[in-house]
């Protein structure tokens, strides 16, 4: 299969994974989860969730979408 230009590279994946999986100091973690999102952030998150649930109404469709998205990403 040909490689699509908009797929992340192995380096992109590694960089995002490293940032996402890094352990935070406890105080930083608790501060993060105890600080409410701004109205703007919350509206943006809600908009994404609404889109995702409207586009993929069932849990099975959502999983299938996620699977398709990551299937060809480099690991």
């Amino acid at each position, binding site marked *: 299969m040909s490689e699509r230009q908009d797929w992340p590279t192995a380096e992109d994946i590694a960089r995002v994974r490293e940032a996402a999986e890094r352990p935070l100091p406890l105080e930083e973690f608790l501060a*993060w989860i105890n600080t409410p999102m701004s109205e703007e952030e919350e509206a943006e998150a809600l908009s994404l*969730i609404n889109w995702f649930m409207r586009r993929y109404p069932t*849990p099975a469709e959502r999983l299938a979408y996620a699977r398709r998205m990551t299937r060809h990403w480099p690991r």
Partner: protein
Amino acid sequence: MHAGLVEEEELFRAVQRSGTRALLIGRRALIMLGLPVATFDYDFWIHIDDAERLNQALEPLGLVPNRSPEEARRFGRYVLENDTRVDVMVARVVPTVDGQRVAWEDVWERRVSLEAVPGIPVAIPCVDDLIATKRFGARAKDANDIQLLQVLQKRGTS
């Protein structure tokens, strides 16, 4: 025997048919509930007595455990892997980073059943319990996921 990536449908079907008391946790559970996040892995929290059963069910898919069931129970977790990675927790109780004790039995009692593939139900924790499981570690993605779960909770899951 399969090599490489395991088909998701086969994975969920094998878990269901085995009778393993398994809760799908982690980002796949979030995705099922409606959060558009990405993941490569599968995360399960199973009953402490069911590791052998799960291993037997996934062996035909080429998934190999990195610890014996006895070791897994001692460590509280293990991994089944080929090119697909399945993280498995086997502890009766897991503490959150801030000291709350989360018991598998309680989470199982409050579980929600959703179809992962048409005709194949998968048990996932309720949203409150998923938030608790996201406090087992203190990673940046867990903090982010907790905030998204809270938005979902406000919105409602249907």
